[in-house]
């Protein structure tokens, strides 16, 4: 456990010198840098196309001769993108808060309490990891249809309000919290919920933020279920809205690229600000997952 934290934390430092200088290091660095540029090229071309006029849209140059924000004003003018953005943000935020809360609660209960049926509950929850979402979407759809959840925020959110992956991750991390701390709090007269909230949770904040990043990203980019459960454009999430918008535009690629850029730019900004936390969080969640 501790070595996973250590190795995901050590990711943040550049490697230290290991022995004699490698004669191939210049070649290695050049190839790596070229690879990195190739990796971001699609994003660069998308951004570049979004500020081009149609007449130079299909030129290979990245920096337009005549940059324009007209595409953005056009795409944003009918307000649909703002709505979809707000929907996605709201849904991803609420789902993340709920999933992190419940996953930490269940992970803690399964880790720190001794009671009959504990192993059974843990294995039952863990076994749901094997069930693919695609198998559940049809029953979820039928369920939402009969309960009137179709085409509602709750309908989009309910499948994700708890996750087995997060429960497993949190259980692993609560193993690192010493029982003595909890016992001391118990003697101080805190009840079990207070012990969890005030004592145990603050000790696993890196894990909580790692899980939050993972769940937020998953919900932000989720496509299949929102596509199935929503009917009216007002309730579309950003990916579903973008698909509809792009199909409408057919050949106006500069507008499609502007829509794609609008869906991508917020994540890019968040990444640039929280880069270290995001990479460390993804490494931590991935290694335990």
């Amino acid at each position, binding site marked *: 456990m501790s070595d996973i934290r*250590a*190795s*995901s934390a050590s*990711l943040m430092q*550049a*490697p230290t*010198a*290991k022995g004699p200088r490698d004669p191939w290091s210049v070649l*290695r660095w050049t190839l*790596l840098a070229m*690879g*990195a*540029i190739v*990796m*971001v090229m*699609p*994003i660069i*071309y998308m951004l570049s196309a979004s500020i081009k006029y149609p007449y130079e849209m299909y*030129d*290979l140059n990245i920096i337009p001769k005549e940059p324009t924000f007209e595409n953005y004003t056009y795409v944003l003018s009918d307000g649909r993108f703002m709505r979809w953005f707000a929907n996605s943000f709201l849904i991803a935020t609420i789902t993340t808060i709920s999933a992190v809360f*419940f996953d930490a*609660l*269940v992970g*803690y*209960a399964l880790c720190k*309490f001794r*009671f009959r049926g*504990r192993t059974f*509950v843990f294995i*039952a*929850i863990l076994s*749901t990891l*094997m*069930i693919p979402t*695609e*198998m559940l979407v*049809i*029953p*979820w*759809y*039928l369920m939402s249809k009969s309960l009137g959840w179709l085409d509602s925020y709750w309908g989009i959110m309910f499948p994700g309000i708890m996750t*087995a992956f997060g429960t497993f991750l949190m259980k692993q991390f609560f193993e690192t919290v010493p029982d003595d701390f909890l016992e001391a709090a*118990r003697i101080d007269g805190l009840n079990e919920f207070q012990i*969890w909230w005030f004592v145990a949770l603050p000790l696993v904040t890196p894990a909580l933020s790692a899980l939050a990043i993972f769940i937020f990203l998953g919900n*932000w*980019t989720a*496509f*299949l279920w929102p596509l199935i459960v929503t009917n009216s454009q007002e309730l579309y999430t950003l990916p579903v809205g*973008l*698909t509809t918008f792009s199909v409408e535009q057919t050949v106006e*690629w500069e507008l*499609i*690229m502007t829509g*794609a850029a609008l*869906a*991508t730019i917020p*994540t890019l900004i968040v990444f640039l600000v929280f*880069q270290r936390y995001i*990479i460390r969080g993804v490494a931590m969640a991935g*290694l335990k997952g």
Partner: protein
Amino acid sequence: MNTYRNLSIRQKQVVWAWGFLALPILFYVVIRFYPTANAIVLSFQSWNLLGPREWVGLENYEKLWNDPVFWKVFKNTFVYLILGTPISLVLSFVIAYHLDKTRLLHGTLRALYFLPFLTSTVAMAWVWRWFYQPVPIGLFNNFLASMGISQISFLNSTTNALPSILIPAIWAGLGFQIIIFMAGLRAIPTSYYEAARIDGVSSWTILSEITLPLLKPTIVFLVVFSSIGFLRIFDQVFNMTTNNPGGPLDSTKPLVLMIYQTAFSSFDMGYAAAQTVVLFAILLVVSLLQLRILRDKP
């Protein structure tokens, strides 16, 4: 309240434990287990959402077995897996291995490789779809034209369309795999390398005798994780072929897209449920096989 006070600490904990678990257990039963059972039951029934649900026994599975589209889709799904997993793992390992030894602009390079992982698959599917268009629109063909090379038909060709869709899928997942590989590489104690260097072992031997064996848990995780991802591919295919989903001539259609169309275009719910059961079986068998094969190797 008095009865609660009279309980021992252990008994109180049991009460708290079930209190913590009550709502989650309800969730897992209603939103995970009941739908799973429902999907399996539905796969033995025939239902178009309007009429009654009728028991048809194994008819849906027989229909699937005799459906030529299913076998095409089955093959496509495995082509995504068989090409996608090895290519993305080899690429990400090579990049992670070398990136781990690079100091100059280390953080920047790593961020650039990681960036595509954070993009929305739908947005990027449309970006790549634009790249793949014929002249005078598509970037790739415009580039080929400017070099005087003949055009390539990407998404309109039954042979090229699937690899063309696979490339963005590999591209988007690479950053995650690189980060996981790098974390795995960092977890290997440097003392192993130091000892090897003192013994004068070549870097190839270090790679094959120290790095790769010690990286095995990471490799197993990434093989299983990325295989499941490729077997469930949907977003990219759906968005890059909206005018004819899974086309041309079903040459790019994966199982999840077939499920989506059967359920939500044809409303053949029983048949679609049978397809989801098959998908579940495929995922289970592939993951267990991979775990078995990779763990058994010395």
